[in-house]
C-alpha cells in the first residue's frame, strides 16, 4: 500500500531525511525506532504533508497515487491518519462538530452522502466506549483541558471514527502511564485488520509489548539502517542506541 523510495526532506533548510526507503503492505505493523533527532517525527510529518517540511527528492506511492502531490486533507481522506505526539487544543469547537466535519469530508471523498445525525451519534458512542472516554466527550472542545492520557486516547478514538488504511502513531506512548497505555494499545489492536496497516514510531520498546510489530526498523541519521523481527526491539532496549551510532555514525 505504501512505498517510500529514497526520500530526502528538509525542515528550516536542514536536511533531516537522507534517503529513506520503506515498504508497507496491508495487515502489517511496522515499528520505527531510533535515537532522538534521527528523523522519526520528520517521517510522520512528511507522510501527512506538514507545510513546514520540504521533500527535496524521492517518492511516496500510496495505493498507486503520488502522495507527495496531494494536499494534507486529501492524504487524510485517502486513508492516511496520524496520531499526533502533541495534539493541539481548538477552543470552542466541540468534538461532535469536529468529528462530524471530518467524517463527512471522508465520506464526500469516497462519493458517499453525509452521515445522519442519529447514525453519527451512535457511531461516536460505540467508538468512545472502546477508548473508555467519558460521556461528556461529544460536547467538550477538541483536546481543551484534556489530560495527557485523555489526549492520546482521543487520538485513537478519532482513528476509530475515521477507519484509516494507514495509521501513523507518532510517539503515542510518550507521557502515558501503564493503564492508559493498555487502553490505547487495546484500541489500536481492536482496529487492526488484514486490510489496514500501522507505522508505530517510538523511542522505547515498552509500547511494543502491547502493539506487536511484524517489523522493527532502526532509523538513524535520516535513513533506515537496520530492519529485523520484533526481537530487534528487545535488543535495542537492552543495548541502547550507542552501538548503532558507532556502527553507522559518520
Amino acid at each position: 500500500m505504501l512505498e517510500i523510495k529514497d526520500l530526502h526532506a528538509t525542515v528550516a533548510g536542514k536536511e533531516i531525511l537522507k534517503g529513506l526507503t520503506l515498504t508497507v503492505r496491508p495487515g502489517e505493523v511496522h515499528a520505527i525506532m531510533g535515537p532522538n533527532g534521527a528523523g522519526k517525527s520528520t517521517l510522520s510529518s512528511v507522510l501527512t504533508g506538514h507545510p513546514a517540511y520540504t521533500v527535496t527528492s524521492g517518492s511516496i506511492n500510496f495505493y498507486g497515487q503520488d502522495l507527495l502531490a496531494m494536499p494534507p486533507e486529501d492524504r487524510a481522506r485517502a486513508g492516511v491518519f496520524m496520531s499526533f505526539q502533541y495534539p493541539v487544543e481548538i477552543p470552542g469547537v466541540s468534538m461532535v462538530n469536529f468529528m462530524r466535519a471530518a467524517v463527512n469530508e471522508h465520506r464526500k471523498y469516497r462519493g458517499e452522502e453525509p452521515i445522519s445525525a442519529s447514525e453519527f451519534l451512535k457511531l461516536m458512542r460505540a467508538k468512545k466506549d472502546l477508548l473508555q472516554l467519558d460521556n461528556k466527550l461529544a460536547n467538550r472542545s477538541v483536546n481543551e483541558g484534556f489530560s495527557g492520557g485523555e489526549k492520546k486516547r482521543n487520538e485513537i478514538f478519532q482513528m476509530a471514527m475515521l477507519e484509516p488504511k494507514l495509521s501513523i502513531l507518532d510517539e503515542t506512548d510518550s507521557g502515558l502511564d501503564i493503564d492508559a497505555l493498555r487502553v490505547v494499545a487495546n484500541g489500536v489492536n481492536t482496529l487492526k485488520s488484514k486490510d489496514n496497516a500501522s507505522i508505530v514510531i517510538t523511542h522505547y520498546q515498552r509500547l511494543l509489548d502491547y502493539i506487536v510489530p511484524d517489523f522493527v526498523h532502526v532509523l538513524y541519521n535520516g535513513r533506515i539502517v537496520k530492519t529485523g523481527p520484533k526481537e530487534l526491539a528487545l535488543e535495542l532496549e537492552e543495548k541502547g542506541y550507542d552501538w548503532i551510532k558507532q556502527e553507522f555514525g559518520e
Partner: protein
Amino acid sequence: MAEDKINNTKSDDIIADVTSGDYKYGFTTDIETEVIPIGLNEEVVRLISAKKEEPEWLLEFRLKAFRHWQTLKMPKWAHLNIPEIDYQAISYYAAPRKNAPKSLDEVDPELLKTFDKLGIPLEEQKALSGMAVDAVMDSVSVKTTFRETLAEKGIIFCSISEAVKSYPDLVKQYLGSVVSYADNFFAALNCAVFSDGSFVYIPKGVRCPMELSTYFRINAGKTGQFERTLIVADDDSYVSYLEGCTAPQRDENQLHAAIVEIVVMNNAEVKYSTVQNWYPGDKEGKGGIYNFVTKRALCKGDNSKVSWTQVETGSAITWKYPSCVLKGDNSIGEFYSVAVTNNYQQADTGTKMIHIGKNTRSRIVSKGISAGKSENSYRGLVKVMPGAENARNFSQCDSLLLNDHCGAHTFPYMDIQNPTAVVEHEATTSKINEDQLFYCNQRGISTEDAVGLIVNGYAREVINKLPMEFAVEAQKLLSVSLEGSVG
C-alpha cells in the same frame, strides 16, 4: 528561511481565497422609489416631517436637532480613517412608491420577493414560528407581521411613524430620553432626518411570547438610511429583539446613522441581538456602508437587565458602541460582541457601562477577528459613579488575527469614582495557529473549512447568546465573511 517563506505564501493564498467570499445580498430590487432631491437644510427637514404627516412637536424636535447638528463637527477620536463625507450629496428620504399597505395583498410583490430572497418571509403562515418581523426598506416600514397576536397581550410592535400617530404620548415621553439629540454628531443628524424604524412597548408583567425582529434593507442608491428604534419594557416584562440588515453592492459609499433607545423599568429585561451584514465594500475597499450608530439602553428601574449581543461582519466602516446606563439599583448590563473585519473594512466598536445605582453589575465579552488589510478596534468605557456602591464589572477583550497585514487594537477606559467597585479586565491577542489548521487538515478538513471551524469556536461564547435561528445564520456568516483568510 526560503522553505518557510514558500509555505507561508501557500497558506496566505489559501487564506486570501477563503476571505474573498462574495457578498450574497448585493442584488438591487427594481422598484419604483420616491427619492427626494439631495442636500440637507431646514426645508428638507420640514419636507420629511410633512411627508410623514407628523405633529408639530416632532417637527420642532427635528429642527432643534438639525440646528444643533450644524454647530457640530464629525468626531475624529476613533481609530478610523473616514474619508470626507459630503452631507449635501446625499438624499435623506427614499420610499418605495406604494405606501403603508393595510394588508399583504397591497404590498408590492417585488418587495415581498426581495424579503423572501433575503430569507425574511412576510407572509405570516410562512414566517418562522415564534418571530414577528418589521421590514424596513430604505426610509419606510414595509410590513409588520403578527401584530394582532401581539396586540392580544397589549404589546405594541409597529413602525415608529405609525407609533407617532397612534401612540403619541408614549413616543413623546421616551423619544430622545436615552440618547439626546445633543449626544453626538451622528445622533443629532439622525434626530433631524430619521425616517423609520420600529417601536416596541411591552406592558407591565408581560413576557413577550415571540422574538420581535426588524429587518433593515437599503435599496435605493445615493441615499442615507437613518432609522430609529425605541423599545420600552415596562415593569416585570421581558422581550427579546433581533435586528438584521443588508444592502446592495454599490461602488459608492452609503451612510447609515441609526439610533436605538431602550428603556427598561423595574424587574424588566430586554435582550437585543444584532446580526449586522451591511455591504462591506469590494476586495479593493471600494463601496460599502458607513455604519455610524448610537445604541443605548437605560436600566431605569431596580433589578432591570439589558443585554446587547452583536455579530458584526458587514459595513466598510463601523462606529458603534451599544451602551448601558445602569441607573436602577441591582441592574445588570451585558455586552457580547463578535466583530469581523476583512479586506479594507474598519471597525471601531465596543460599549460603555455607566454604573449609577447600587450593586449594579456589568459584563463585557468582545471578540475581534481581523483578516485581509482590515483594522479592528475595541473601545470600551467602564464608569462607576460615586453613588454606585458595590458595582462590579468584568471585561474580556480578545483579538484574533488571521494574517500579518491586519490590525487589532484595544482601547479600554476606566473611570472609577467609588472605592467599593470591583473591576476586572482581561485581554488576549492571538494569531490563528498553523498547528490547529494542520491538525484539521490531517483529519480531512480543508484549510478554508478549518478557518470557519476555528473562528466559530473562538466566537462561540457570544454566538451562544443569540436566539437559535440567528445563531445558525451568524455561524454561516462568520465562515462566509472569512472565506480564504488564514496566514
